[in-house]
């Protein structure tokens, strides 16, 4: 018998092949979102079995079900609150004992469980023979052998899951012994529940007691909501914890974990035969090379450089096509619509805005593709292993290096994919710190600004200056991380303890699915915010227009111009006047009191305001502000000559300006992505505030300090 509307929750350890299983079960029918209120990714899809539709919800990959990590809490709460019909726990057969630790916790919880004994082929290769039927009998749950990567056993698994769901057996917690001390303590805690257990359904009082002995903050919070029960349980919990710690000289949570493993070990020995001694596997041999003291770092540098080169090489052409497409759309619209505010809004506001979002898509796609290869092959974990010691000194995590490189560690990256790449970081504070510092790296959009200023003021030392700028951005980013981790993000780093999964050949299907869902989530989430801000930026740079009499004066002068050249000079002059009169121009003038000590006048300020749209806009806006028309960032020759001669501009001020552009406010696309990745406007706004503050202070120190030293 089969029921309608079956809901399966797919759970399992990271690296157990859970993603492959989800893909094998649901095919292309997948959706991605977030769990409410947290940044944990939620994926769901539909499987079908003989015409029956089965909803599959992919829980985050976890090793345990404590309340310590967001992922574990999300997985546990989903099961408790949403009560799926059955939990399918994907376990790695070649790594069974540790994988059963999670399975056992589902059984303690009591939800109906089906075990997918995955990667049976790997286990066989390793000489591990598992009697699946016996394992199922010993554990009291169905066990189905599978090889998800090859689609083996997937149908059988669905059938067994559907059957289990159809039984509607309700929740039955598995009660194992945790040793006499804990067992007695549990009995006393359960005793306090008389008559109240229904209110906690489907949770069993014993499970609640167990969590109290494990000092589970989430369950303790829930108990607090029932003052009657809390008054009974609270003192008893303290007393029992104290008693157990003293008699057993151990953390009660540790005692419980030890007994869980003891139980698993006895099941394991009965159902599993290891026909071969542990030997050095191929993966270990590869590891010896890739984590070698000398070769490891060299290979790592080569790989990171390769990723960087690949991403920007592969995305160059598609980015060009998209730019061409949006350029064409802009021109077509310009030709169709008459001169005026509407045309300006549609061309400069909407098309450029949407183009900005879409323009990043190829870069994001290839970056996620490269990261998926590193992740799925197992190399990403080695990156963290190799670099953890260095990055930890700055309060970061070994894996922080990937976002830093993508963000422009080698000049010319992009902070948008870099911020998204921090998803691979499991330490929440280190991740936030990484997100905050990534915009300091030298993204591709800052390069035209550097090129402009370097060729105008440091023509003799171009390469040295670029190298210095690269080093300064690394140094500042790392220092900023260190300071953040001492202040805003104070606290111990999360434990590092990390699995180094065996090297595997990634499957193309898995890579494509990973790449696509992340790319799509960028388009969906970032798109809405960016269009709005883009229109806002446009309005700031355009409105209000010149007063009518002034505009008429300019127009009559332009009409009366004797030559094409004179006409253009006048048009540029009008552009400058318009910009000066706009909101951004007024802001530029207003800010000039503040920026005078940095050597920036209103024209520099208005360019910096425009740079919030994208840093290369600084060049174009400077062009307009110096009456040169909109300067193409790639060909800024005329502006270079102009600035070199301009009073007030000198190498010292230019260097300060380069520093300022490097550090100040991430572009708004990045800010939108920071909002999305941190789930809070607070951090998004902070990323603007602290970078601008830092940029100001450093540019001030450089300019004033330099003048004292007689450099200006």
């Amino acid at each position, binding site marked *: 018998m089969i029921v309608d509307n079956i809901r399966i929750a797919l759970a399992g350890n990271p690296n157990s092949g859970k993603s492959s299983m989800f893909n094998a079960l649901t095919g292309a029918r997948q959706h991605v979102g977030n769990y409410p209120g947290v940044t944990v990714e939620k994926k769901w899809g539909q499987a079908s079995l003989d015409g029956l539709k089965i909803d599959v919800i992919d829980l985050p990959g976890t*090793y*345990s079900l*404590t309340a*310590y990590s967001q992922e574990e809490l999300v997985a546990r709460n989903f099961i408790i609150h949403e009560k799926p019909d059955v939990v399918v726990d994907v376990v790695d057969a*070649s*790594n069974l*004992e*540790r994988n059963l*630790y999670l399975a056992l916790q589902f059984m303690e919880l009591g939800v109906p469980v089906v075990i997918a004994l995955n990667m049976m082929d790997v286990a066989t290769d*390793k000489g*591990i023979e598992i009697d699946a039927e016996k394992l199922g009998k010993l554990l009291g749950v169905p066990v189905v052998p599978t090889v998800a990567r090859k689609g083996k056993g997937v149908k059988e698994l669905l059938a067994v899951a559907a059957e289990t769901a159809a039984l509607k057996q309700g929740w039955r917690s598995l009660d194992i012994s945790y040793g006499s001390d804990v067992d007695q303590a549990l009995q006393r805690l359960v005793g306090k529940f008389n008559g109240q257990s229904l209110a906690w359904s489907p949770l069993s009082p014993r499970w609640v007691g167990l969590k109290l002995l494990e000092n589970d903050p989430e369950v303790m919070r829930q108990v607090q909501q029932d003052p009657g029960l809390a008054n009974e349980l609270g003192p008893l919990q303290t007393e029992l914890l104290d008693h157990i710690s003293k008699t057993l000289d*151990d*953390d009660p*949570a*540790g005692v419980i*974990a*030890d007994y869980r*493993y003891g139980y698993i*070990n006895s099941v394991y020995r009965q159902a599993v035969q290891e026909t071969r001694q*542990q030997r050095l596997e191929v*993966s*270990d041999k590869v*590891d*010896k090379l890739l*984590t070698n*003291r*000398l070769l*490891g*770092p060299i290979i790592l540098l080569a790989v990171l450089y390769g990723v960087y080169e690949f991403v920007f090489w592969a995305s160059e052409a598609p980015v060009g096509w998209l730019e061409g497409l949006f350029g064409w759309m802009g021109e077509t619209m310009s030709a169709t619509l008459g001169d005026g505010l509407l045309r300006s809004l549609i061309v400069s506001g909407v098309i450029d805005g949407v183009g900005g979002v879409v323009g990043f898509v190829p870069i994001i796609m290839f970056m996620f593709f490269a990261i998926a290869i590193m992740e799925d092959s197992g190399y990403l*974990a080695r990156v*963290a*292993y*190799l670099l*953890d*010691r*260095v990055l*930890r000194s700055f309060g970061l995590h070994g894996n922080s290096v990937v976002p830093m490189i993508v963000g422009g560690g080698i000049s010319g990256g992009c902070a948008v994919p870099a911020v998204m790449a921090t998803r691979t970081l499991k330490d929440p504070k280190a991740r936030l710190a990484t997100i905050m510092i990534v915009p300091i790296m030298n993204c591709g959009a800052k390069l035209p600004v550097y090129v402009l200023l370097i060729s105008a003021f440091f023509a003799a030392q171009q390469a040295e200056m670029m190298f210095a700028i690269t080093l300064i951005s690394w140094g500042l980013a790392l220092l900023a991380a260190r300071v953040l981790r001492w202040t805003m993000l104070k606290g111990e780093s*999360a*434990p*590092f*303890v*990390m*699995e*180094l*999964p*065996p090297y595997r050949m990634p499957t193309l299907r898995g890579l494509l699915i990973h790449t696509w869902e992340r790319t799509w989530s960028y388009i969906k989430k970032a798109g809405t915010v960016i269009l709005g801000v883009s229109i806002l930026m446009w309005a700031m740079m355009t409105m209000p227009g010149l007063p009518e009499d002034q505009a008429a004066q300019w127009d009559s002068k332009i009409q009366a111009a004797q030559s094409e050249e004179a006409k253009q000079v006048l048009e540029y002059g009008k552009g400058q006047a318009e910009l000066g009169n706009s909101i951004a121009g007024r802001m530029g003038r207003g800010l000039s009191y503040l920026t005078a000590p940095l050597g920036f006048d209103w024209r520099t300020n208005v360019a910096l305001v425009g740079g919030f749209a994208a840093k290369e806009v600084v060049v174009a806006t400077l062009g307009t502000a110096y009456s040169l028309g909109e300067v193409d960032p790639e060909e800024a020759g005329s502006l270079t000559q102009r600035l070199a001669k301009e009073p007030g501009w000198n190498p010292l001020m230019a260097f300060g300006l380069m520093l300022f552009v490097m550090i100040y406010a991430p572009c708004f696309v990045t800010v939108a992505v920071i909002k999305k990745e941190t789930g809070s406007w607070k951090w998004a706004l902070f990323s603007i505030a602290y970078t601008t503050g830092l940029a100001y202070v450093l540019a001030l120190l450089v300019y004033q300090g330099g003048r004292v030293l007689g450099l200006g």
Partner: protein
Amino acid sequence: MIHFESLRSLKTGENATIFKVTAMGEMGRRIRDMGLVPGVSVTMMGRAPLKDPVEIKLKGFNLALRNNEADHILIQQPEINSHDC
């Protein structure tokens, strides 16, 4: 009293059995969640270029942990064992 060494002191290629995990709280939980519990045999696979973190093998899988985490895992090496018995 037998003196138990911490996992940090294990040399590359050496084997030992975990005797006790002294870490509490979140770190203790994470260590145990990964299967590092008393009675389990571990092999030191190597160290990162700056000697930290370390890579160990247990129950057929590889794990990286920082030295300050390894310090909380007390081990018994086979030869100490044989003297003891």
